[in-house]
């Protein structure tokens, strides 16, 4: 039986997107049929979800058939490399006649499975996203005070956020029996609105599994786990240094990333298990009983506000001072 894709497949309809992906991966038939007759819109969150979903279906040894995909979306999804590593049954993808160069707007779906790839990936993605935006000259000389040019100021918060999110996805997500989990990333700049959208999706253990032993998790529910993960200094292994000094996290990466989104006039949507949290308001269980094994994040920010973001303002407040004075030169 075909899975009918919703008309909007992205962060603003995360429940519907997750429900569709779950239906695709939960199917028992050897052929997963995806009916796109109602599909009108896909965003980078949706792109990354599709990447993860198609990967999971192929891991199951099943084939994928895509039906009734409009020519526009066919071109867009092909351009975003959604079908790049997917063996489809049937006609898709076909060659797109005239490929409009949207290299300034789009960052194709990227899959990472090695944390040593994170630095390069975060740099490349941030540079691609902002490097050729309107009025940006990557070769502009840096100003004398900050030693940064406009491109640097735009790219820095994005590279910071991507570095933290990708690192989380390739470390925390791999605990609890998911050592081979991967992470998918996609991005797009929407010129009309000035918004930059990122999608970061992993197929790992999810927040609940990662934090289930944390003393502050009062109820073992996905929603509580997401909210706890957003608290500063919460990590599954923050205090494990006593036993495992090689494996510690401060529990601040997700917090600072969420703050970056908000300070840049955007938001962060987090889906894990049966729950979602949107920093702009909506929070709670996914509707229709939808479930995502792993963590799926949509990060949105306003390009014009990015230069205002200062990393030091993203850090949680702290009162303590080290007992030994730091030596700065």
């Amino acid at each position, binding site marked *: 039986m075909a899975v009918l894709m919703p008309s909007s497949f992205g962060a603003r309809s995360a429940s519907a997107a997750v429900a569709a992906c779950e239906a695709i991966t939960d199917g028992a038939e050897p052929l997963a049929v995806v009916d796109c007759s109602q599909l009108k819109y896909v965003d980078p969150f949706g792109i990354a979800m599709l990447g993860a979903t198609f990967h999971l279906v192929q891991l199951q040894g099943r084939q994928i058939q895509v039906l009734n995909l409009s020519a526009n979306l066919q071109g867009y999804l092909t351009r975003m490399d959604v079908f790049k590593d997917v063996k489809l049954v049937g006609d898709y993808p076909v060659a797109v006649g005239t490929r409009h160069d949207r290299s300034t707007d789009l960052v194709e779906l990227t899959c990472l499975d090695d*944390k*040593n790839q*994170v*630095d*390069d990936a*975060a*740099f490349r993605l*941030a*540079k691609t996203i902002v490097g050729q935006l309107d009025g940006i000259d990557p070769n502009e000389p840096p100003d004398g005070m*900050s*030693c*940064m040019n406009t491109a*640097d100021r735009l*790219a*820095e918060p994005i*590279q*910071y956020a991507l*570095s*933290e999110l990708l*690192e989380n996805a390739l*470390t925390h997500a791999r605990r609890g029996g998911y050592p081979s989990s991967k992470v998918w990333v996609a991005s797009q700049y929407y010129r009309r609105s000035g918004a930059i959208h990122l999608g970061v999706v992993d197929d790992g253990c999810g927040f609940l599994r990662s934090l289930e032993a944390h003393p502050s998790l009062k109820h073992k529910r996905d929603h509580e786990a997401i909210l706890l993960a957003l608290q500063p*200094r919460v990590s599954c292994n*923050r*205090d494990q*240094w*006593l036993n495992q*000094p*090689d494996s*510690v*996290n*401060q529990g*601040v*990466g997700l917090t*600072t990333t969420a703050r970056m989104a908000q300070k840049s006039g955007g938001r962060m949507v987090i889906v894990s298990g049966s729950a979602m949290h949107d920093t702009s308001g909506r929070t709670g269980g996914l509707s229709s009983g939808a479930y995502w094994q792993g963590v799926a994040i949509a990060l949105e920010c306003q390009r014009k506000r990015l230069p205002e973001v*200062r*990393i*030091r303002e993203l*850090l*949680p407040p*702290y009162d*303590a*001072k*080290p*007992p*030994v*004075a*730091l*030596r*700065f*030169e």
Partner: protein
Amino acid sequence: MRSELFLANLARGRFIGTRATAATLREQVEIALAQGNEVVFDFSGVEATQSFVDELIGALILRRGPDILNRLIFKSCSDDVRAVIEFVAADRCDQYIKANTH
């Protein structure tokens, strides 16, 4: 004697991000410290994530205690990098002290 580490060599663009990069660098730091040296981290022209700084310096504090900061020097830090270092150091020193206070 001082051992100087130029972090720009590790940056991608202006950024150093990951714990994996910091963990590798920390091994060099441990060697320098074992030789009795002070270690200078030169942050000229780079920015760093909190994760990187925590893996580099936070882990040293948790293993050796806050006194290790007497042998670490942070050079040419931007305001952001300085804030991240101060945050990590304060947080991990506090954590160490609480764990070792009876």
